[in-house]
């Protein structure tokens, strides 16, 4: 299956979807506001505070042990200062994405999806730090949104997607490969179309499109490699879509590992065994965060 035809298929699917969730009004306004040259953080905070669910979710995301703030951040304004203006846009987009898909109506439960996503976000942040990547917040957010397209498949192509999941159950087949084979497109292309529609920044679009093929990335291959590897680690510990995918990999043969080792040679000495065990230990925090983000709605 070539990339162009998979992209065409995805575009067609996303364009023809009438009830594709839209971004909340407030998020759109936030995005407009932060484009202004003389924007002040106070104004952004005031605007965001008009959407309580969004505010609550931003606070949960930032204060979770998964994200590891230096100390608890109690006000939205402080949170935005901490993140910096350049990240507010992404956080607004991420929480919009959470808002857009907070109803359990897909082939797989949302909690499994979000636990994987936040898990990959957390691990991406840790990996980013390990290799000296300059923007840890970016890595965190890229990890959270990388599988955007998966929710589309699960929610809007419920039956077809269920059939894909059934076909790989307990087999050593990657979900992304089964999608390509059976649906003619994958969550990468679909996610990219959605990200374009929602005006996600370019680097994130690339992560969504290339997180399974990091060596094809051109804008930020390091970021794509970070997310790719974090995704693999989460897939072999208990952040693997509730065990729906059975993944196995030989670390040294992974292209992401090569890319990151070139970037930071000392990575070769990493204690990956210990890393996996520590990851197991962090899973309750991830689950806790996901459930708190979704109870923020009530």
């Amino acid at each position: 299956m070539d990339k162009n035809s998979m992209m065409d298929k995805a575009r067609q699917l996303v364009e023809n979807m009438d009830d594709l969730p839209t971004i909340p009004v407030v998020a759109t306004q936030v995005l407009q506001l932060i484009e202004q040259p003389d924007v002040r953080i106070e104004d952004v905070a005031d605007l965001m505070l008009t959407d309580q669910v969004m505010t609550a979710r931003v606070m949960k995301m930032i204060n979770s042990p998964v994200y590891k703030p230096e100390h608890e951040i109690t006000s939205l304004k402080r949170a935005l200062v901490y993140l910096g203006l350049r990240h507010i846009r992404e956080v607004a987009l991420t929480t919009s994405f959470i808002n857009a898909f907070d109803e359990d109506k897909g082939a797989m439960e949302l909690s499994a999806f979000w636990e994987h996503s936040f898990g990959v976000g957390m691990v991406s942040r840790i990996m980013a730090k390990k290799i000296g990547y300059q923007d840890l917040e970016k890595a965190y957010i890229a990890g959270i949104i990388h599988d955007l397209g998966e929710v589309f498949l699960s929610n809007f192509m419920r039956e077809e997607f269920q059939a894909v999941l059934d076909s790989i159950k307990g087999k050593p087949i990657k979900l992304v490969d089964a999608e390509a084979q059976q649906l003619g497109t994958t969550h990468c292309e679909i996610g990219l179309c959605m990200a374009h529609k929602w005006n996600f920044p370019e680097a994130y679009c690339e992560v969504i499109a290339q997180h399974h093929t990091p060596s094809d990335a051109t804008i930020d291959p390091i970021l794509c490699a970070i997310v790719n590897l974090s995704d693999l680690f989460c897939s072999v510990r208990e952040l693997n879509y509730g065990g729906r995918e059975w993944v196995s990999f030989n670390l040294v043969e992974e292209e992401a590992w090569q890319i990151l080792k070139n970037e930071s040679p000392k990575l070769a000495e990493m204690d990956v065994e210990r890393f996996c065990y520590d990851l197991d230990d962090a899973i309750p925090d991830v689950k806790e965060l996901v459930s708190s983000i979704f109870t923020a709605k009530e």
Partner: protein
Amino acid sequence: MAIADKDFELIRDFIYNICGMFFHTTKKYFLESRLARRMDATGVKTHLEYFQLLKSLRGSEELKFLMDEITTNETYFFRNVPQLNALENKLLPEIVEIKNKMGFRKLRIWSAASSSGEEAYTMAMILLEKRATLLKDWIIEIVGTDINETVVAQAKEGIYNAYSVRNIPDAYKRKYIKEDNGKFILSPDVKKFVTFNKLNLYDDNKMIFMKTFDIIFCANVLIYFDTASKSKVVQHFYNNLQPYGYFFVGQSESLHGVNDKFKTVHFPGGFTYKK
């Protein structure tokens, strides 16, 4: 005394660095209760003091006592399910494909430190299930070895208690285990694939003759060895493994820093080592 998170992490890191065994946070209370026994026995008052004792000159002696408390010298059938899944899903088919291409239809598996044989017999059951399909016309050789003659004799006998067989999936149990007065007797169909011998992993002269294995298990024993001995033993395993073979350690063990030739291959719930 409840153990503080900070002290738990100090002691767990210490155990990990010396023994290569990781205590997950879920086992914190277990560790806490076992530490209490050792603190009683040594008269040490706080966890921090106990940690200092472990690090002190007579620490290695105390560590032996602690290890006795926190590890159980037990074994049972189907002990490491993620490992078995990985073997069935991927590793075995992969090895079989390679050997089929070479026209070499023989599988050799070693359970090093096999204790009373459960690990070796678990493999035998799993392979036996594949006699009609993947392993049709294959020769299967499973070897179990242990330093302790008593457990080697038990392994040869193949009679088990309820605890030991509790994890065997029903389908296997029905086929391969016969219950008799609270004793669980292993079917001769399984037994005939496995041989048991006495072998000390420190015995270099014997270790070099354990050749050409496709899969080696050495679970829950290297944690008692010091780093130098671990390295030496693991190097033997490395040499004795086929180039496409796999080497398995126990559930929360790690070989990091013990051998830098083996590569990690990850799968859900675990990893294995490859040349």
